[in-house]
């Protein structure tokens, strides 16, 4: 399998704070990578840098063999990268259908259209003329995922899709994700819930203080290993 996405030595800063430090990894076509780690570990910043929302201060991002480090976010969407941002970030005064159509008209053409998205998320059907601001959290999340799909991405970046949702709603969101992943989508997923992340992903990468400190297949990694990396326990013992 060839790498669809290759990140090399990526550094991203927010002013004086260096959120991502020398991160390198690859994602193959059809693979699902789960990024885990504590709050502030740099997961969201890393995803946003891949999507083009943050300009890195160092390193390179290659997509499908092409260097996209200097491309803006909308150019990357046209190449096939879509981000479902943390907090969903729908256009509040646009209807569900308009939220989908904005992305549909601006992104790539392909199998995903308003009709196929509404088929994949049946709960949105009756809501298509409602303003996004009036939706519940789960409905907003489904719209946000649908909106990203409307650009017909080759790589889907999902940032904390279960955050702030009731457990039963999270089940629904993950059921839709599982069918997407079975359909061959390439996904990078940021998730706080370790068990859930490890259940859908082919590979798990754990971030700590801006670095990837552990990477492996969910089957080969033990929960203890991931927990240690997650909280940086070994480092603390070493420095104590």
């Amino acid at each position, binding site marked *: 399998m060839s790498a669809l996405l290759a990140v090399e030595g990526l550094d991203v800063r927010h002013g004086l704070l260096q959120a991502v430090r020398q991160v390198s990894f690859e994602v193959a076509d059809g693979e699902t990578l789960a990024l885990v780690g504590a709050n502030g570990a740099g997961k969201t910043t890393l995803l946003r840098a891949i999507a083009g929302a943050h300009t890195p201060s160092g390193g390179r991002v290659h997509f499908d063999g092409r260097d996209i480090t200097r491309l803006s976010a909308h150019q990357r969407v046209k190449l096939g990268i879509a981000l479902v941002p943390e907090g969903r970030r729908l256009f509040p*005064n646009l209807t569900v259908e308009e939220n989908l159509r904005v992305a549909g008209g601006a992104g790539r053409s392909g199998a995903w259209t308003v009709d196929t998205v509404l088929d994949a998320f049946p709960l949105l059907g009756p809501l298509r003329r409602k303003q996004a601001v009036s939706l519940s959290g789960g409905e907003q999340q489904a719209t946000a995922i649908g909106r990203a799909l409307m650009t017909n991405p080759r790589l889907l970046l999902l940032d904390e899709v279960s955050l702030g949702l009731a457990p039963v709603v999270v089940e629904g969101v993950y059921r839709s994700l599982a069918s997407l992943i079975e359909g061959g989508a390439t996904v990078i997923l940021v998730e706080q819930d370790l068990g859930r992340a490890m259940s859908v992903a082919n590979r798990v990468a754990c971030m700590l203080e801006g670095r990837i400190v552990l990477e492996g297949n969910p089957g080969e990694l033990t929960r203890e290993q991931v927990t240690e990396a997650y909280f940086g326990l070994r480092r603390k013992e070493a420095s104590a």
Partner: protein
Amino acid sequence: MTWVSAIVHGILLGGFYALLATGLALMFGVMRIINLAHGSLALIGAYMAFLFVEHAHISPYLALAPILPVALVAGYALQRTMLERSLRAGQLVPLLTTFGLLIVIANLLQYFFSPDVHSLDEGRIGAAAWNVSSALAIPWFDVLTLGIAVFLLGGLQLVLQHTQLGRELRATAEDPDTAELVGVNARAVYARATAIAVATAALAGVFYGMRTSFDPNAGAAELLYAFEAVVIGGIGSLWGTLWGGIVLGVAQLVGAQINTEYFALSGHVVFLAVLVVRVAIQGGRLTLVPRRAT
């Protein structure tokens, strides 16, 4: 009957204010730029029409055919070269940039056209009026101006609601970063909004030149009325701009009916009253604009 006449003429005058305010409302609605040079850009439209009338001997209406495309291109270029850079530096810088532009335009117009007043001939329609009664005559030119304002605002509203450009404009207005993430080129969308705004300014300017004589400094005064129309109507709403213009026009002419000196004053008083009422309704927080939801 004179009161009826004041109200009818106020409504028609409001149509002109709405025409002038359309581009201002659009730029503020999409980019949060208060374009202080909007009136001056309108004035350039009037002077361009003057040049066509003088040298090509065509009517100002016909001059719109070459002026509007030029204004579209100029607006696009204005956004890409000046406003885009100043937007990156925060909210205050675009205001200062357009203020600078206002002064530069006034001085350039003075340099090329002298400080003397110019005017445009509005053609046969200018003298024609529908005489409803001895005290009430409705000038066709004013009806035409109001009609164009309604047509323009209605057309823009349709574009905003039903086209991909309109959806991209609204999405970018609400959240430019997220718009980029779904594939919208936010800077190109901004440039298109400014292009449309400058073209509507030029259109309004040609009509302004036919209504009244103009000089290089007329831009700032007209801008004030357009700005008041936008604020009264509720910033960001296109139909609101039409109502705002009409409220302002009626207030001015009803005020002038009481005493001719009250023309401008009564408009300003209504503008202030609307602001005060809004502040009271919103519990002391002056939020004219529905802010981006986070």
